């Protein structure tokens, strides 16, 4: 099968490893560009959120490149994401593509249906091979997140070179298909990046800004207009509040350490928002409060335009900001967001924080 899938940050590396191990031909869509978004905007519903439009663009580009099967994640609501795959199928059908879509919907107790849905992806492999493929992909996701974490800790020293190192490490991880080699590539990448902080004498204290919000917008650099890189260039240490590996630990593996963390953020969010509201809304509020208690200088909240859970979070975050005396900037992004206006806003925000810090210090 010729498989394609939507882009989300570096996810494609892990998915490529997974499907190649299972013996499929993988055709990753070209990286998200202006063209992708334009395609998505042309064919997707008018006020659907940006991730859907990017997905549609990815699929069209992937299918044009010769893919036959589209793999997409489903969900159980109430966020729109759970119904994405259904709309995307109809859109592509109306466009006249002949393709096959495999939707990975959560089992919701019906494991038989779940396995049946996934059967074509198994490609007749035995359980052992499937396990190997899954663990390799999982290791890759963890490795990529680890490298990205290291990058964020050092990028403000020298944005240009650190990002080069990072890209190099990502490329190396993409190239390996063995767990041992993967480990070596990862530690090599991390070692190189860590060198940047060792060379410093520790006198430079950067501003710390936490990014919270909707995960797709946090993780896909093209749609958030390279927010992290831009902040790094201004001498800011960026902390990403959630990584893909965290999400998987929370929602798929139910890792005990992460469950404890979840209890913590729920407790922190209690005075502001005390229930699940779909998507990442609750997390946005809870993590903001948790980080606000630590020594950070500001929060940037990113969301796609019209995102339902994040609008609730956006309405509540000013209260968090007031209570903890912490500046919060909300960036609602869509296909019309332009780099210049965006940079101006971030620069102003960073300037404000810097002034504030000098006054209070």
């Amino acid at each position: 099968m010729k498989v394609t899938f939507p882009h989300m940050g570096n996810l494609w590396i892990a998915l490529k490893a997974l499907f190649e191990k299972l013996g499929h031909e993988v055709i990753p869509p070209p990286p998200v560009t202006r063209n992708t978004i334009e395609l998505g905007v042309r064919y997707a519903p008018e006020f659907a959120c940006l991730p859907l439009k990017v997905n549609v663009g990815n699929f069209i580009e992937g299918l044009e490149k010769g893919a036959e099967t589209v793999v997409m994640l489903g969900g159980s609501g109430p966020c729109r994401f759970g119904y994405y795959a259904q709309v995307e199928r109809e859109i592509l059908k109306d466009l006249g593509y002949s393709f096959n879509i495999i939707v990975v919907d959560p089992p919701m107790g019906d494991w038989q249906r779940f396995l049946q849905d996934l059967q074509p992806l198994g490609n007749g492999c035995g359980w052992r091979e499937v396990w190997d493929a899954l663990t390799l992909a999982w290791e890759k996701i963890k490795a990529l997140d680890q490298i990205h974490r290291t990058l964020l800790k050092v990028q403000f020293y020298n944005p240009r070179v650190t990002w080069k190192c990072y890209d190099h490490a990502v490329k190396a991880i993409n190239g390996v298909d063995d767990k041992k080699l993967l480990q070596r590539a990862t530690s090599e990448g991390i070692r190189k990046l860590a060198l940047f902080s060792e060379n410093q004498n520790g006198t430079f204290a950067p501003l710390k800004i936490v990014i919270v919000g909707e995960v797709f917008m946090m993780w896909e650099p093209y749609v958030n207009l390279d927010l992290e890189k831009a902040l790094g260039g201004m001498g800011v240490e960026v902390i990403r509040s959630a990584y893909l590996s965290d999400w998987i630990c929370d929602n798929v593996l139910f890792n005990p350490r992460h469950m404890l963390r979840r209890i913590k953020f729920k407790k922190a969010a209690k005075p502001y928002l005390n229930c699940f509201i779909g998507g990442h809304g609750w997390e946005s509020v809870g993590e903001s409060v948790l980080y606000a208690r630590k020594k950070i200088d500001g929060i940037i909240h990113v969301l796609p335009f019209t995102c339902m859970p994040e609008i609730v979070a956006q309405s509540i975050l000013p209260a968090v900001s007031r209570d903890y005396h912490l500046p919060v900037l909300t960036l609602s992004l869509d296909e019309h967001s332009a780099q210049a206006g965006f940079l101006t806003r971030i620069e102003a925000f960073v300037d404000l924080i810097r002034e504030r810090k000098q006054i209070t210090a």
Partner: protein
Amino acid sequence: MGLKIGIPRALLYYDYFLLWNTFLESLGVEIVLSQKTNKDIVNNGIKSAVEETCLPVKVFLGHVHNLAQKKVDYLFIPRYISVEPRRFLCPKFMGLPYMIKHLIPGIPPVLNVDIDMRKQKGELPVEMYRLGRLFTFNPWKIRMAYRLARENQKSFKKMMLQGFLPEEVFFNGTEKSKALKRTVLKENDQDRNVLRIGLIGHSYNLYDKYINMNILEKLQEMGVQIITSKMFSEAEVNSGLKKLQKDIFWTFGKETIGSAFYLLEERITHGIILLVSFACGPDSIIMDLIDRAYKRAGIPCLTLVLDEHSAEGGVITRLEAFIEMLKWRKQKNEGYFSTHGKPVDCPESPF
């Protein structure tokens, strides 16, 4: 004199007011409603809401402002998580009480009620009992109030199926209310000359005259018979849903898409109008699915997007054009519908 409790005349008011009203009034509570939606209410709502919020939620905030001025003891804003198994309401409803607390400072305290029937159906009585205990210590009284409320809600639902307007049912009872006369629809041959149109949307858009710019009356004035998405029984909606590959997880979404697909299958209307509020999350996806299905079947479908900037003139023009088009093609050819991209005159594509 009992406590005064304010209920905003917006959002789920159009679905559940009778239930809460009966329940609370039989416990000796005085209910205060906000005014009907007007310009001030909308403006106040817009001022306090986050810009991207959909119009109905902005209007809701405006109603809360309005109630805050009326000196009520409590506001009644339940948190609707889910009203049926396996389905949610919109995420904004789930966070609504919290949003209001943080967006509008200085409002009366909000009664904390959670409606979550996702897993089991028994949840509601427990929650209603908890609510009832605030006003009376007599469990028997609460039980009777709950029963009465449930009965009323049931008969209200029946009346909605017959096409009565919710507000008229709330305040006038059935005798004086006007119905949209759904019954005629079933007997297809009785009235051949009348245009029939499906009006698909959420209850708070369909029945709030200010938000929808009085679309119901306008259509009736144009001599059109309307069937709204609230006039479909559970069975009809479910039969419409069979077309979907994946069960839908929004209650309102289920209603709209189920009724639209049912209409499509039974072919009892000449066209449908989709009433959507701008930035409505579920609808952005669901209305697109409906639109695509109608286009494929060749039945005209008009999407009216409502927001605080919609002007009455533009809406009338579009409605008139749509109705004209339907009438025209009805005279020309009973079986042929001009749809998107095809001229009315030639059934075969000229290209």
